[in-house]
Protein backbone atom coordinates (compact mmCIF):
# COMPACT_ATOMS: atom_id res chain seq x y z
CA UNK A 1 0.00 0.00 0.00
CA UNK A 2 1.26 3.46 -0.88
CA UNK A 3 1.90 5.82 2.03
CA UNK A 4 0.13 8.70 0.36
CA UNK A 5 -2.35 8.88 -2.50
CA UNK A 6 -2.36 11.93 -4.75
CA UNK A 7 -5.77 12.96 -6.11
CA UNK A 8 -6.14 15.92 -8.46
CA UNK A 9 -9.25 17.80 -9.46
CA UNK A 10 -9.16 18.89 -13.10
CA UNK A 11 -12.65 20.35 -13.46
CA UNK A 12 -15.03 21.99 -11.00
CA UNK A 13 -18.04 22.28 -13.28
CA UNK A 14 -19.27 21.17 -16.68
CA UNK A 15 -17.99 24.24 -18.50
CA UNK A 16 -14.59 24.34 -16.78
CA UNK A 17 -11.36 24.91 -18.73
CA UNK A 18 -9.76 21.86 -20.34
CA UNK A 19 -6.06 22.70 -19.99
CA UNK A 20 -5.56 22.47 -16.18
CA UNK A 21 -6.70 18.83 -16.17
CA UNK A 22 -4.23 18.02 -18.95
CA UNK A 23 -1.41 19.62 -16.94
CA UNK A 24 -2.43 17.57 -13.89
CA UNK A 25 -2.53 14.32 -15.89
CA UNK A 26 0.74 15.10 -17.64
CA UNK A 27 2.90 16.56 -14.87
CA UNK A 28 0.95 16.17 -11.63
CA UNK A 29 2.29 12.72 -10.66
CA UNK A 30 -1.26 11.81 -9.74
CA UNK A 31 -2.73 8.50 -8.71
CA UNK A 32 -6.26 9.70 -9.47
CA UNK A 33 -7.72 12.52 -11.52
CA UNK A 34 -11.28 13.59 -10.74
CA UNK A 35 -13.44 15.70 -13.06
CA UNK A 36 -16.55 17.05 -11.32
CA UNK A 37 -18.90 18.20 -14.08
CA UNK A 38 -22.48 18.01 -12.78
CA UNK A 39 -24.52 20.81 -11.24
CA UNK A 40 -28.11 20.39 -10.04
CA UNK A 41 -29.60 21.55 -13.30
CA UNK A 42 -26.98 20.01 -15.62
CA UNK A 43 -28.39 16.50 -15.27
CA UNK A 44 -31.98 17.57 -15.98
CA UNK A 45 -30.83 19.32 -19.17
CA UNK A 46 -28.90 16.17 -20.06
CA UNK A 47 -32.07 14.08 -19.58
CA UNK A 48 -33.77 16.29 -22.16
CA UNK A 49 -30.93 15.71 -24.66
CA UNK A 50 -31.16 11.95 -24.01
CA UNK A 51 -34.88 12.03 -24.73
CA UNK A 52 -34.19 13.63 -28.11
CA UNK A 53 -31.34 11.20 -28.88
CA UNK A 54 -30.88 8.04 -26.75
CA UNK A 55 -27.15 7.99 -27.62
CA UNK A 56 -26.65 11.39 -25.92
CA UNK A 57 -27.30 12.77 -22.45
CA UNK A 58 -23.71 12.67 -21.23
CA UNK A 59 -21.50 15.73 -20.70
CA UNK A 60 -21.21 17.82 -23.90
CA UNK A 61 -17.44 18.25 -23.34
CA UNK A 62 -16.78 14.54 -22.66
CA UNK A 63 -15.27 13.81 -26.07
CA UNK A 64 -12.96 16.83 -26.03
CA UNK A 65 -11.79 16.12 -22.48
CA UNK A 66 -11.17 12.39 -23.04
CA UNK A 67 -9.41 13.01 -26.36
CA UNK A 68 -6.92 15.31 -24.63
CA UNK A 69 -6.52 13.32 -21.42
CA UNK A 70 -6.50 9.66 -22.42
CA UNK A 71 -2.89 9.41 -23.71
CA UNK A 72 -1.55 11.04 -20.51
CA UNK A 73 -3.78 8.98 -18.20
CA UNK A 74 -2.58 5.71 -19.69
CA UNK A 75 1.09 6.75 -20.06
CA UNK A 76 1.28 7.94 -16.45
CA UNK A 77 -0.98 5.28 -14.93
CA UNK A 78 -3.51 7.82 -13.59
CA UNK A 79 -7.04 6.56 -12.96
CA UNK A 80 -9.87 8.90 -13.91
CA UNK A 81 -13.08 9.23 -11.88
CA UNK A 82 -15.78 11.49 -13.31
CA UNK A 83 -19.51 12.16 -13.23
CA UNK A 84 -19.49 13.16 -16.91
CA UNK A 85 -21.92 10.30 -17.54
CA UNK A 86 -24.65 12.75 -16.48
CA UNK A 87 -28.00 11.34 -17.65
CA UNK A 88 -26.45 8.54 -19.72
CA UNK A 89 -23.32 6.98 -18.15
CA UNK A 90 -23.48 3.87 -20.38
CA UNK A 91 -23.48 5.91 -23.60
CA UNK A 92 -20.61 7.97 -22.13
CA UNK A 93 -18.66 4.77 -21.43
CA UNK A 94 -19.24 3.55 -24.98
CA UNK A 95 -18.12 6.92 -26.36
CA UNK A 96 -14.89 6.66 -24.34
CA UNK A 97 -14.27 3.17 -25.79
CA UNK A 98 -14.85 4.58 -29.28
CA UNK A 99 -12.27 7.33 -28.65
CA UNK A 100 -9.77 4.80 -27.21
CA UNK A 101 -10.16 2.60 -30.29
CA UNK A 102 -9.56 5.57 -32.59
CA UNK A 103 -6.42 6.47 -30.59
CA UNK A 104 -5.48 2.74 -30.42
CA UNK A 105 -5.10 2.95 -26.67
CA UNK A 106 -6.30 -0.09 -24.70
CA UNK A 107 -8.61 1.05 -21.92
CA UNK A 108 -11.10 -0.40 -19.45
CA UNK A 109 -14.07 1.70 -18.38
CA UNK A 110 -16.32 0.92 -15.40
CA UNK A 111 -19.75 2.52 -15.65
CA UNK A 112 -21.78 3.20 -12.50
CA UNK A 113 -25.55 3.33 -13.00
CA UNK A 114 -28.54 3.29 -10.68
CA UNK A 115 -28.95 6.97 -9.81
CA UNK A 116 -31.88 7.44 -12.19
CA UNK A 117 -34.96 6.92 -10.01
CA UNK A 118 -37.50 8.62 -12.27
CA UNK A 119 -39.49 5.39 -12.68
CA UNK A 120 -39.66 4.96 -8.91
CA UNK A 121 -41.34 8.30 -8.20
CA UNK A 122 -45.08 8.88 -8.30
CA UNK A 123 -44.93 12.69 -8.15
CA UNK A 124 -46.81 12.66 -4.85
CA UNK A 125 -43.60 12.76 -2.82
CA UNK A 126 -43.19 16.07 -1.03
CA UNK A 127 -40.61 18.59 -2.24
CA UNK A 128 -38.07 19.60 0.40
CA UNK A 129 -38.19 23.23 -0.74
CA UNK A 130 -41.96 23.78 -0.61
CA UNK A 131 -43.54 20.87 1.27
CA UNK A 132 -45.92 20.46 -1.70
CA UNK A 133 -46.08 17.35 -3.92
CA UNK A 134 -43.29 17.26 -6.54
CA UNK A 135 -45.80 17.26 -9.40
CA UNK A 136 -47.23 20.62 -8.24
CA UNK A 137 -44.04 22.28 -9.59
CA UNK A 138 -44.74 21.30 -13.20
CA UNK A 139 -44.38 18.34 -15.53
CA UNK A 140 -41.58 16.17 -14.10
CA UNK A 141 -38.78 15.33 -16.53
CA UNK A 142 -36.04 13.69 -14.46
CA UNK A 143 -35.13 12.35 -11.03
CA UNK A 144 -31.60 11.44 -10.03
CA UNK A 145 -30.53 10.31 -6.57
CA UNK A 146 -27.14 11.29 -5.18
CA UNK A 147 -25.18 8.03 -4.98
CA UNK A 148 -22.24 7.80 -2.60
CA UNK A 149 -18.89 6.12 -2.12
CA UNK A 150 -20.51 2.69 -1.69
CA UNK A 151 -21.72 2.83 -5.32
CA UNK A 152 -18.30 3.83 -6.70
CA UNK A 153 -16.19 1.26 -4.79
CA UNK A 154 -17.22 -1.80 -6.88
CA UNK A 155 -16.23 0.13 -10.02
CA UNK A 156 -12.78 0.89 -8.57
CA UNK A 157 -12.43 -2.76 -7.59
CA UNK A 158 -12.65 -3.80 -11.27
CA UNK A 159 -9.28 -2.12 -11.82
CA UNK A 160 -10.72 -0.01 -14.66
CA UNK A 161 -8.67 2.95 -15.94
CA UNK A 162 -11.77 5.14 -15.99
CA UNK A 163 -14.78 5.16 -13.68
CA UNK A 164 -17.72 7.08 -15.08
CA UNK A 165 -20.89 7.87 -13.14
CA UNK A 166 -24.08 9.85 -13.33
CA UNK A 167 -25.35 11.68 -10.26
CA UNK A 168 -23.11 11.06 -7.25
CA UNK A 169 -22.37 13.41 -4.36
CA UNK A 170 -19.37 15.55 -5.36
CA UNK A 171 -17.17 14.71 -2.32
CA UNK A 172 -17.82 10.97 -2.86
CA UNK A 173 -15.81 11.16 -6.11
CA UNK A 174 -12.79 11.80 -3.85
CA UNK A 175 -13.73 9.73 -0.79
CA UNK A 176 -14.15 6.58 -2.93
CA UNK A 177 -10.50 6.28 -4.07
CA UNK A 178 -9.30 6.96 -0.50
CA UNK A 179 -11.50 4.19 0.89
CA UNK A 180 -10.45 1.91 -1.97
CA UNK A 181 -6.71 2.51 -1.46
CA UNK A 182 -6.52 2.68 2.33
CA UNK A 183 -9.24 0.17 3.15
CA UNK A 184 -11.06 2.68 5.36
CA UNK A 185 -14.28 1.39 6.87
CA UNK A 186 -17.39 3.19 5.63
CA UNK A 187 -18.52 3.04 9.26
CA UNK A 188 -15.54 5.07 10.48
CA UNK A 189 -17.44 8.34 10.43
CA UNK A 190 -14.47 10.49 11.50
CA UNK A 191 -12.23 9.22 8.69
CA UNK A 192 -15.04 9.51 6.14
CA UNK A 193 -15.76 13.00 7.52
CA UNK A 194 -12.13 13.99 6.96
CA UNK A 195 -12.28 12.43 3.48
CA UNK A 196 -15.35 14.56 2.82
CA UNK A 197 -13.46 17.70 3.88
CA UNK A 198 -10.75 16.75 1.36
CA UNK A 199 -13.34 16.16 -1.38
CA UNK A 200 -15.20 19.38 -0.61
CA UNK A 201 -11.98 21.41 -0.75
CA UNK A 202 -11.00 19.88 -4.11
CA UNK A 203 -14.35 19.60 -5.88
CA UNK A 204 -14.50 23.15 -7.27
CA UNK A 205 -10.96 22.93 -8.68
CA UNK A 206 -9.78 26.53 -9.35
CA UNK A 207 -11.85 27.86 -6.45
CA UNK A 208 -9.21 26.37 -4.13
CA UNK A 209 -6.17 27.66 -6.01
CA UNK A 210 -7.06 31.34 -5.82
CA UNK A 211 -9.20 31.58 -8.95
CA UNK A 212 -12.57 32.60 -7.60
CA UNK A 213 -10.78 34.21 -4.63
CA UNK A 214 -8.91 36.84 -6.62
CA UNK A 215 -9.39 40.60 -6.24
CA UNK A 216 -6.57 42.76 -7.64
CA UNK A 217 -6.67 45.04 -4.61
CA UNK A 218 -4.57 44.25 -1.56
CA UNK A 219 -4.54 40.90 0.22
CA UNK A 220 -6.49 39.02 -2.46
CA UNK A 221 -4.11 39.71 -5.35
CA UNK A 222 -3.29 36.38 -7.05
CA UNK A 223 -0.34 35.86 -9.42
CA UNK A 224 -0.57 34.62 -13.03
CA UNK A 225 -4.34 34.13 -13.15
CA UNK A 226 -4.24 33.39 -16.89
CA UNK A 227 -2.41 30.12 -16.18
CA UNK A 228 -4.39 29.21 -13.04
CA UNK A 229 -3.50 25.69 -11.95
CA UNK A 230 -6.01 23.24 -10.50
CA UNK A 231 -5.33 21.51 -7.16
CA UNK A 232 -4.33 18.11 -5.91
CA UNK A 233 -4.13 16.60 -2.43
CA UNK A 234 -1.58 14.18 -0.99
CA UNK A 235 -3.57 12.11 1.47
CA UNK A 236 -2.12 9.80 4.10
CA UNK A 237 -3.80 6.68 5.45
CA UNK A 238 -4.71 8.56 8.65
CA UNK A 239 -6.57 11.18 6.58
CA UNK A 240 -4.04 13.99 6.85
CA UNK A 241 -4.07 15.91 3.57
CA UNK A 242 -1.65 18.39 2.06
CA UNK A 243 -3.05 20.39 -0.85
CA UNK A 244 -0.85 21.67 -3.64
CA UNK A 245 -0.73 22.50 -7.34
CA UNK A 246 1.64 21.72 -10.20
CA UNK A 247 4.85 23.79 -10.13
CA UNK A 248 4.84 26.57 -12.70
CA UNK A 249 1.04 26.96 -12.85
CA UNK A 250 -0.59 30.23 -11.83
CA UNK A 251 -2.76 30.98 -8.83
CA UNK A 252 -2.15 30.57 -5.12
CA UNK A 253 -3.06 28.04 -2.47
CA UNK A 254 -3.19 29.55 1.01
CA UNK A 255 -5.08 29.16 4.26
CA UNK A 256 -7.31 32.04 3.11
CA UNK A 257 -8.19 30.42 -0.24
CA UNK A 258 -8.86 27.13 1.58
CA UNK A 259 -11.14 28.77 4.17
CA UNK A 260 -13.33 30.32 1.48
CA UNK A 261 -13.70 26.97 -0.27
CA UNK A 262 -14.30 25.03 2.97
CA UNK A 263 -17.42 27.10 3.70
CA UNK A 264 -18.64 27.30 0.08
CA UNK A 265 -22.29 26.20 -0.24
CA UNK A 266 -22.24 24.89 3.34
CA UNK A 267 -25.42 25.28 5.38
CA UNK A 268 -24.76 24.06 8.94
CA UNK A 269 -20.95 23.60 9.12
CA UNK A 270 -21.33 21.02 11.89
CA UNK A 271 -23.71 18.93 9.75
CA UNK A 272 -22.64 18.73 6.10
CA UNK A 273 -24.78 15.88 4.82
CA UNK A 274 -23.57 13.53 2.05
CA UNK A 275 -24.58 9.94 1.23
CA UNK A 276 -21.39 8.84 3.07
CA UNK A 277 -21.51 10.74 6.34
CA UNK A 278 -22.81 13.74 8.23
CA UNK A 279 -19.54 15.64 8.21
CA UNK A 280 -18.47 18.17 10.85
CA UNK A 281 -16.24 20.98 9.49
CA UNK A 282 -16.06 22.97 12.72
CA UNK A 283 -12.85 21.37 14.03
CA UNK A 284 -10.91 21.54 10.76
CA UNK A 285 -7.40 22.98 11.07
CA UNK A 286 -5.71 24.56 8.05
CA UNK A 287 -2.00 25.27 8.06
CA UNK A 288 0.47 26.50 5.46
CA UNK A 289 3.26 23.92 5.37
CA UNK A 290 5.14 25.29 2.34
CA UNK A 291 4.73 27.64 -0.60
CA UNK A 292 1.28 26.92 -2.13
CA UNK A 293 0.93 23.99 0.27
CA UNK A 294 -1.88 23.82 2.82
CA UNK A 295 -2.46 20.99 5.27
CA UNK A 296 -6.00 20.09 6.36
CA UNK A 297 -6.77 17.92 9.39
CA UNK A 298 -9.60 17.60 11.87
CA UNK A 299 -12.61 16.72 9.72
CA UNK A 300 -15.03 14.56 11.65
CA UNK A 301 -18.42 13.01 11.20
CA UNK A 302 -21.34 10.97 12.38
CA UNK A 303 -23.15 8.05 10.76
CA UNK A 304 -24.38 8.42 7.17
CA UNK A 305 -28.09 9.15 6.63
CA UNK A 306 -30.59 6.44 5.69
CA UNK A 307 -32.06 8.62 2.97
CA UNK A 308 -30.50 10.01 -0.20
CA UNK A 309 -31.32 13.35 -1.77
CA UNK A 310 -33.01 13.21 -5.17
CA UNK A 311 -32.76 16.09 -7.64
CA UNK A 312 -35.99 16.31 -9.61
CA UNK A 313 -36.21 18.29 -12.85
CA UNK A 314 -39.48 19.80 -14.09
CA UNK A 315 -40.60 21.74 -17.11
CA UNK A 316 -40.42 25.40 -16.05
CA UNK A 317 -41.67 27.01 -19.28
CA UNK A 318 -39.66 29.69 -21.04
CA UNK A 319 -37.80 32.85 -20.10
CA UNK A 320 -37.84 35.71 -22.60
CA UNK A 321 -35.35 38.55 -22.26
CA UNK A 322 -34.69 41.87 -23.96
CA UNK A 323 -31.93 44.44 -23.49
CA UNK A 324 -31.25 47.96 -24.80
CA UNK A 325 -28.68 50.62 -23.85
CA UNK A 326 -28.86 54.35 -23.13
CA UNK A 327 -25.81 56.62 -22.77
CA UNK A 328 -24.97 60.27 -22.17
CA UNK A 329 -27.12 62.96 -20.56
CA UNK A 330 -30.05 61.64 -18.52
CA UNK A 331 -29.25 58.02 -19.48
CA UNK A 332 -30.73 56.44 -16.34
CA UNK A 333 -33.94 58.48 -16.56
CA UNK A 334 -34.43 57.53 -20.21
CA UNK A 335 -33.80 53.87 -19.36
CA UNK A 336 -36.29 54.11 -16.48
CA UNK A 337 -38.89 55.65 -18.78
CA UNK A 338 -38.32 52.74 -21.17
CA UNK A 339 -38.69 50.27 -18.28
CA UNK A 340 -41.97 51.88 -17.20
CA UNK A 341 -43.32 51.68 -20.75
CA UNK A 342 -42.46 47.98 -21.04
CA UNK A 343 -43.92 47.27 -17.60
CA UNK A 344 -47.22 48.89 -18.64
CA UNK A 345 -47.29 46.96 -21.93
CA UNK A 346 -46.50 43.52 -20.45
CA UNK A 347 -47.63 43.41 -16.82
CA UNK A 348 -51.09 41.96 -17.54
CA UNK A 349 -49.62 39.03 -19.49
CA UNK A 350 -46.77 38.03 -17.14
CA UNK A 351 -47.11 37.06 -13.50
CA UNK A 352 -43.30 36.85 -13.32
CA UNK A 353 -41.72 39.96 -14.93
CA UNK A 354 -38.47 41.67 -13.95
CA UNK A 355 -36.97 45.00 -14.99
CA UNK A 356 -33.29 45.64 -14.30
CA UNK A 357 -30.96 48.60 -14.87
CA UNK A 358 -27.54 47.16 -15.70
CA UNK A 359 -24.87 49.47 -14.33
CA UNK A 360 -26.97 50.43 -11.33
CA UNK A 361 -29.05 47.83 -9.46
CA UNK A 362 -29.21 44.73 -11.67
CA UNK A 363 -26.90 42.39 -9.77
CA UNK A 364 -27.36 43.16 -6.07
CA UNK A 365 -30.96 44.34 -6.56
CA UNK A 366 -29.92 47.49 -4.67
CA UNK A 367 -26.90 49.80 -4.72
CA UNK A 368 -26.82 50.52 -0.97
CA UNK A 369 -27.39 54.23 -1.64
CA UNK A 370 -24.58 54.71 -4.17
CA UNK A 371 -26.39 56.89 -6.69
CA UNK A 372 -23.94 58.71 -8.96
CA UNK A 373 -25.47 59.37 -12.40
CA UNK A 374 -24.07 56.61 -14.64
CA UNK A 375 -22.76 57.68 -18.06
CA UNK A 376 -24.42 54.64 -19.62
CA UNK A 377 -27.05 52.18 -18.52
CA UNK A 378 -28.56 49.06 -20.05
CA UNK A 379 -32.21 48.23 -19.57
CA UNK A 380 -32.90 44.53 -19.22
CA UNK A 381 -36.37 42.97 -19.06
CA UNK A 382 -37.06 39.31 -18.31
CA UNK A 383 -40.33 37.36 -18.07
CA UNK A 384 -41.14 33.70 -17.48
CA UNK A 385 -44.24 32.05 -18.91
CA UNK A 386 -45.43 28.77 -20.43
CA UNK A 387 -45.82 29.40 -24.20
CA UNK A 388 -42.52 30.10 -25.98
CA UNK A 389 -44.26 32.60 -28.24
CA UNK A 390 -45.41 34.73 -25.32
CA UNK A 391 -41.90 34.61 -23.78
CA UNK A 392 -40.57 35.99 -27.07
CA UNK A 393 -42.84 39.03 -26.69
CA UNK A 394 -40.53 40.40 -23.96
CA UNK A 395 -37.62 40.80 -26.40
CA UNK A 396 -39.94 42.03 -29.15
CA UNK A 397 -41.30 44.82 -26.98
CA UNK A 398 -37.80 45.89 -25.95
CA UNK A 399 -36.59 45.87 -29.56
CA UNK A 400 -39.60 47.98 -30.54
CA UNK A 401 -38.23 50.78 -28.33
CA UNK A 402 -35.96 51.55 -31.31
CA UNK A 403 -38.62 53.57 -33.12
CA UNK A 404 -41.19 54.01 -30.39
CA UNK A 405 -38.77 55.65 -27.96
CA UNK A 406 -37.49 56.98 -25.59
CA UNK A 407 -34.60 58.77 -27.35
CA UNK A 408 -31.24 57.24 -28.06
CA UNK A 409 -31.83 53.57 -27.21
CA UNK A 410 -29.26 51.35 -28.95
CA UNK A 411 -27.87 47.81 -29.13
CA UNK A 412 -31.11 45.91 -28.55
CA UNK A 413 -30.80 42.13 -28.10
CA UNK A 414 -33.48 39.53 -27.50
CA UNK A 415 -33.35 35.95 -26.22
CA UNK A 416 -35.70 33.08 -25.38
CA UNK A 417 -34.61 30.00 -23.48
CA UNK A 418 -36.25 26.91 -22.10
CA UNK A 419 -36.35 26.56 -18.32
CA UNK A 420 -35.77 23.36 -16.37
CA UNK A 421 -36.66 23.87 -12.74
CA UNK A 422 -35.24 21.77 -9.92
CA UNK A 423 -36.84 20.58 -6.68
CA UNK A 424 -35.56 17.93 -4.27
CA UNK A 425 -36.95 15.04 -2.31
CA UNK A 426 -35.57 12.16 -0.25
CA UNK A 427 -35.53 8.43 -1.00
CA UNK A 428 -34.69 5.47 1.24
CA UNK A 429 -31.18 4.39 0.23
CA UNK A 430 -32.24 0.74 0.23
CA UNK A 431 -34.59 1.43 -2.68
CA UNK A 432 -31.55 1.92 -4.92
CA UNK A 433 -29.53 -0.78 -6.65
CA UNK A 434 -26.34 0.73 -8.10
CA UNK A 435 -24.76 -1.37 -10.82
CA UNK A 436 -21.33 -1.53 -12.50
CA UNK A 437 -20.82 -2.37 -16.20
CA UNK A 438 -17.29 -2.96 -17.48
CA UNK A 439 -16.43 -1.97 -21.06
CA UNK A 440 -13.14 -2.66 -22.88
CA UNK A 441 -11.61 -1.19 -26.01
Amino acid sequence: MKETIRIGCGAGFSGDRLEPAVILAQRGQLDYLVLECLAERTIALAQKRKRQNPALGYDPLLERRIDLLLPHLIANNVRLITNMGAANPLAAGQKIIEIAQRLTIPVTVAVVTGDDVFAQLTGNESALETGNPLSASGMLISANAYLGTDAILPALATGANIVITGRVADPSLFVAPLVHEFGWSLDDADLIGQGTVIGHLLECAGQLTGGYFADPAGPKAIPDMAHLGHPFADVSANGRAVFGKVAGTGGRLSVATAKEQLLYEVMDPSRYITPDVVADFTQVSLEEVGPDQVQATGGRGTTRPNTLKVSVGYDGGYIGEGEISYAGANALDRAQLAGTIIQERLQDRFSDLRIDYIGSTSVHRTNFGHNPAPYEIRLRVAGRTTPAQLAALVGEEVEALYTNGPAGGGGARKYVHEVVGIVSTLIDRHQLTPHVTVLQS
Partner: protein
Amino acid sequence: MTIKLYDIAHSRAGDKGNTLTLSLIPYNADDYELLKMQVTAEVVKQHLSAIVAGEITRYELPNLPALQFVCQQALTGGVTTSLTMDTHGKSLSYALLEMQLTV
Protein backbone atom coordinates in the same frame (compact mmCIF):
# COMPACT_ATOMS: atom_id res chain seq x y z
CA MET B 1 -14.36 55.64 12.86
CA THR B 2 -16.31 53.82 10.18
CA ILE B 3 -14.83 50.99 8.16
CA LYS B 4 -16.22 48.74 5.46
CA LEU B 5 -16.34 44.98 6.04
CA TYR B 6 -14.45 44.74 2.73
CA ASP B 7 -11.40 46.29 4.41
CA ILE B 8 -11.03 43.62 7.10
CA ALA B 9 -12.70 40.46 5.81
CA HIS B 10 -13.39 38.34 2.75
CA SER B 11 -16.43 36.35 1.73
CA ARG B 12 -17.69 33.77 -0.77
CA ALA B 13 -21.33 33.26 -1.67
CA GLY B 14 -22.89 29.87 -2.36
CA ASP B 15 -26.38 28.69 -3.29
CA LYS B 16 -28.62 25.76 -2.40
CA GLY B 17 -31.98 26.19 -4.09
CA ASN B 18 -33.43 29.50 -2.88
CA THR B 19 -30.97 29.67 0.04
CA LEU B 20 -27.86 31.86 -0.05
CA THR B 21 -24.77 31.08 2.01
CA LEU B 22 -22.21 33.78 2.81
CA SER B 23 -18.94 33.16 4.58
CA LEU B 24 -17.23 36.01 6.42
CA ILE B 25 -13.54 35.47 7.09
CA PRO B 26 -11.34 38.09 8.77
CA TYR B 27 -7.92 38.63 7.16
CA ASN B 28 -6.54 39.01 10.67
CA ALA B 29 -7.77 36.45 13.21
CA ASP B 30 -7.74 39.20 15.87
CA ASP B 31 -10.73 40.80 14.13
CA TYR B 32 -12.92 37.71 14.65
CA GLU B 33 -14.26 38.99 17.99
CA LEU B 34 -15.18 42.34 16.41
CA LEU B 35 -17.05 40.55 13.63
CA LYS B 36 -18.76 38.24 16.13
CA MET B 37 -19.90 41.23 18.20
CA GLN B 38 -21.02 43.54 15.40
CA VAL B 39 -22.01 41.37 12.44
CA THR B 40 -24.96 39.62 14.03
CA ALA B 41 -27.68 37.84 12.06
CA GLU B 42 -30.03 40.75 12.85
CA VAL B 43 -27.61 43.37 11.51
CA VAL B 44 -27.01 41.35 8.34
CA LYS B 45 -30.74 40.89 7.87
CA GLN B 46 -31.16 44.66 8.00
CA HIS B 47 -28.20 45.31 5.67
CA LEU B 48 -29.46 42.79 3.09
CA SER B 49 -33.13 43.70 3.42
CA ALA B 50 -33.40 44.39 -0.34
CA ILE B 51 -32.05 40.91 -1.07
CA VAL B 52 -33.00 38.40 1.64
CA ALA B 53 -36.70 37.83 2.31
CA GLY B 54 -36.38 34.97 4.81
CA GLU B 55 -34.57 34.16 8.02
CA ILE B 56 -30.81 34.49 8.45
CA THR B 57 -28.95 32.01 10.66
CA ARG B 58 -25.37 32.70 11.75
CA TYR B 59 -22.90 29.91 12.51
CA GLU B 60 -19.69 30.61 14.41
CA LEU B 61 -16.45 28.82 13.50
CA PRO B 62 -13.90 30.04 16.07
CA ASN B 63 -11.42 27.39 14.96
CA LEU B 64 -10.90 28.92 11.48
CA PRO B 65 -11.94 31.65 12.54
CA ALA B 66 -14.94 32.59 10.41
CA LEU B 67 -18.67 33.25 10.44
CA GLN B 68 -21.18 31.62 8.10
CA PHE B 69 -24.56 33.18 7.26
CA VAL B 70 -27.35 31.04 5.82
CA CYS B 71 -30.03 33.24 4.25
CA GLN B 72 -33.43 31.79 3.34
CA GLN B 73 -35.56 33.02 0.42
CA ALA B 74 -32.69 35.05 -0.93
CA LEU B 75 -32.39 34.06 -4.58
CA THR B 76 -35.80 34.99 -6.08
CA GLY B 77 -36.71 31.32 -6.41
CA GLY B 78 -33.29 29.81 -7.03
CA VAL B 79 -30.88 29.38 -9.89
CA THR B 80 -33.10 27.47 -12.28
CA THR B 81 -36.19 29.67 -12.45
CA SER B 82 -35.04 33.08 -11.19
CA LEU B 83 -35.34 36.09 -13.53
CA THR B 84 -32.45 37.98 -11.94
CA MET B 85 -29.14 38.65 -13.68
CA ASP B 86 -27.09 36.71 -11.12
CA THR B 87 -29.30 33.68 -10.60
CA HIS B 88 -26.79 31.91 -8.31
CA GLY B 89 -26.32 35.02 -6.18
CA LYS B 90 -22.57 34.58 -6.62
CA SER B 91 -21.93 38.34 -6.59
CA LEU B 92 -23.70 38.77 -3.24
CA SER B 93 -20.52 38.16 -1.21
CA TYR B 94 -19.63 41.72 -2.17
CA ALA B 95 -23.07 42.94 -1.05
CA LEU B 96 -22.26 41.67 2.45
CA LEU B 97 -18.82 43.32 2.31
CA GLU B 98 -20.51 46.71 1.63
CA MET B 99 -21.61 46.76 5.27
CA GLN B 100 -20.17 49.56 7.42
CA LEU B 101 -18.86 48.98 10.95
CA THR B 102 -18.13 51.56 13.61
CA VAL B 103 -14.87 50.81 15.41
